[in-house]
């Protein structure tokens, strides 16, 4: 299992896109396309991610090209940073590997009307309050307990159910991808095991690369878009990165078991058994789709509850109601999901199953799926950077619809394994180093910080540059963390 580089062909299409030709491996139905510049391509060639891009091109019904974003790295079956759209009417398949274990891992950004000067003098106190108040850490349950009946409602309705409980506003729903509730969720397809893992985890952060950050807007690149989102230089924002917790991981695990024999059953030849899949229009395909949608709804509810708890904690800290702190949700995006969306292929509008694994939707202005508030500027795209470095807000551009089925990158992508990152840290107190950079980090174990140190990730600024040059999404604002809570 040593790290071998990719030795196959890579042809430059332009200064930020490369092609893996369709004739690279017999069985590829389309070519592969990787969005990257020369700097990033060096990292990308060093692992097997391009091979995985070529493998995804084998999937029945795959349209146009197997795509990869600039933050691509090796994953299970699909690489992380992979996008692939299949046409169900052509026997197109759905593959859990194209979504990931953490179904609807995603990120949301909430603004405030506080600025740097309001928060810096009390950053320690604020981070302590968040660290104590936000449930985080391995297997950590939270204060929101849902009985089986209500849990099933949560899976069916996502954030909409929370609105009925008074834990979400109408704007919160409008500013969440899919309104925080994707249609066609089938809680009845979610196993008992998954329900058991999820009954006390809604509203918890988790661990690994999940985090809650207090950030400051450092630079605005698009005044109009920023104003529409309520962003200004020096304003404080809250970014929350989390997913569907144990419920989602179990749904993925269950589906991989259920789909083990599906490729043989449907006569699908795969170069990698981790691309296990079934036609969207098959019982197995519909079961995964329904269960995955239910898990996605759970994840939106999770991020909504995390945000709600943050509002309460900050209201307490600053002695004002969260509404008067203007703690409004700018937007929430999924970056591990499969959705049925309309896209144009060869001049015809088609209904496609779009897999985004470590990739974010980036719809442009005037897209009918966008809320009224963002119709004129395009969909906000939230890109969490690595801990201690910058995060970005972008806005979807027409180029994404032309080139990537309305998708762009999701973050920075790891370059260093967790054990290498820990070795690299060499016992350095990462929390102290972050403090020197002006970041207050709260984490239960120093190892958790070392694994997530900035050196372990690619430079998100470079990734965002490529996405902007390729016309997929435009820069709106760059943010820097002041404090981070990790599990």
């Amino acid at each position: 299992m040593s790290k071998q580089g990719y030795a196959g062909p890579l042809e430059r299409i332009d200064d930020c896109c490369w092609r893996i030709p369709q004739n690279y491996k017999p069985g590829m139905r389309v070519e592969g396309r990787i969005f990257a510049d020369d700097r990033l391509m060096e990292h990308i060639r060093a692992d097997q991610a391009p091979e995985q891009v070529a493998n995804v091109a084998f999937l029945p019904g795959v349209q146009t090209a197997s795509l990869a974003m600039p933050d691509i790295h090796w994953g299970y079956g699909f690489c992380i940073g992979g996008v692939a759209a299949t046409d169900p009417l052509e026997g197109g398949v759905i593959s859990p590997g194209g979504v990931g274990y953490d179904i609807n891992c995603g990120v949301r950004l909430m603004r405030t009307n506080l600025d740097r000067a309001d928060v810096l003098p009390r950053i320690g106190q604020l981070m302590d309050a968040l660290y104590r108040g936000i449930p985080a850490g391995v297997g950590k349950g939270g204060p929101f307990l849902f009985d089986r009946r209500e849990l099933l409602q949560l899976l069916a309705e996502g954030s909409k159910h929370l609105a009925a409980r008074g834990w979400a506003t109408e704007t919160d729903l409008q500013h969440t991808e899919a309104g925080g509730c994707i249609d066609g969720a089938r809680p009845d397809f979610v196993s008992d095991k998954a329900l058991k893992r999820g009954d006390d985890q809604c509203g918890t952060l988790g661990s690994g690369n999940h985090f809650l950050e207090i950030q400051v807007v450092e630079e605005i690149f698009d005044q109009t878009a920023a104003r529409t989102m309520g962003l200004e230089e020096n304003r404080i924002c809250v970014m929350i990165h989390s997913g569907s917790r144990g419920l989602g991981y179990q749904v993925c695990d269950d589906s991989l078991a259920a789909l083990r024999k599906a490729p043989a059953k449907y006569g699908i030849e795969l170069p990698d058994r981790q691309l296990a899949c079934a036609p969207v229009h098959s019982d197995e395909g519909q079961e995964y789709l329904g269960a995955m949608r239910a898990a996605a709804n759970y994840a939106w509810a999770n991020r909504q509850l995390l945000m709600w708890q943050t509002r309460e904690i900050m209201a307490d800290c600053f002695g004002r109601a969260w509404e008067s702190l203007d703690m409004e949700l700018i937007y929430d995006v999924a970056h591990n999901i499969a959705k049925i969306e309309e896209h144009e292929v060869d001049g015809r509008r088609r209904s496609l199953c779009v897999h985004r694994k470590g990739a974010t939707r980036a719809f442009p202005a005037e897209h009918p799926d966008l809320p009224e508030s963002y119709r004129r500027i395009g969909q906000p795209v939230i890109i969490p950077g690595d801990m201690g470095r910058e995060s970005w807000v972008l806005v979807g551009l027409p180029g994404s619809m032309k080139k990537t089925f309305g998708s762009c990158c999701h973050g920075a992508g790891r370059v260093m394994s967790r054990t290498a990152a820990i070795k690299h840290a060499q016992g350095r107190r990462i929390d102290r180093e972050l403090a020197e950079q002006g970041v207050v980090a709260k984490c239960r174990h120093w190892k958790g910080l070392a694994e997530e140190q900035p050196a372990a990730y690619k430079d998100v600024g470079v990734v965002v540059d490529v996405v902007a040059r390729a016309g997929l999404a435009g820069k709106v604002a760059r943010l820097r963390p002041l404090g981070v809570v990790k599990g």
Partner: protein
Amino acid sequence: MYEIFEHTADMGIRVRAAALDELFADAARGLFSVMVSNLDAVRTVEETAFSIAADDVEQLLHDWLAELLYAFHAQRLVFDEFDVSVDGTALTAAARGEPLDPGRHEIEVEVKAVTWHGLKVERNEHGWLAEVIVDV
């Protein structure tokens, strides 16, 4: 005997043993050692029985570890001792340990799932070798 090896975003467990029963027991211990850094502090007070059937021995290893992971996450149990009896592509086992105590057990890494990537269980001249990657 097991060792943890690195894998870009995740972790691998490599196990070597003379016999299959021992291989499965050591793999289980390897899994819990990834999650609980002070596994030796776990008291052996409770026992849980497992019975698993699979189509092949790799799937058996995957499903055995997945069941243990589920017991950890859903029932909050930590195990450090395992008696496993493998018969073809099925096994029965007893796992011993105690309920998770965040005060005493150092839980550092969350294993989300046992993946199928590079999963192998093979015989060699020294006995058996298994490798499994866990998603953390």
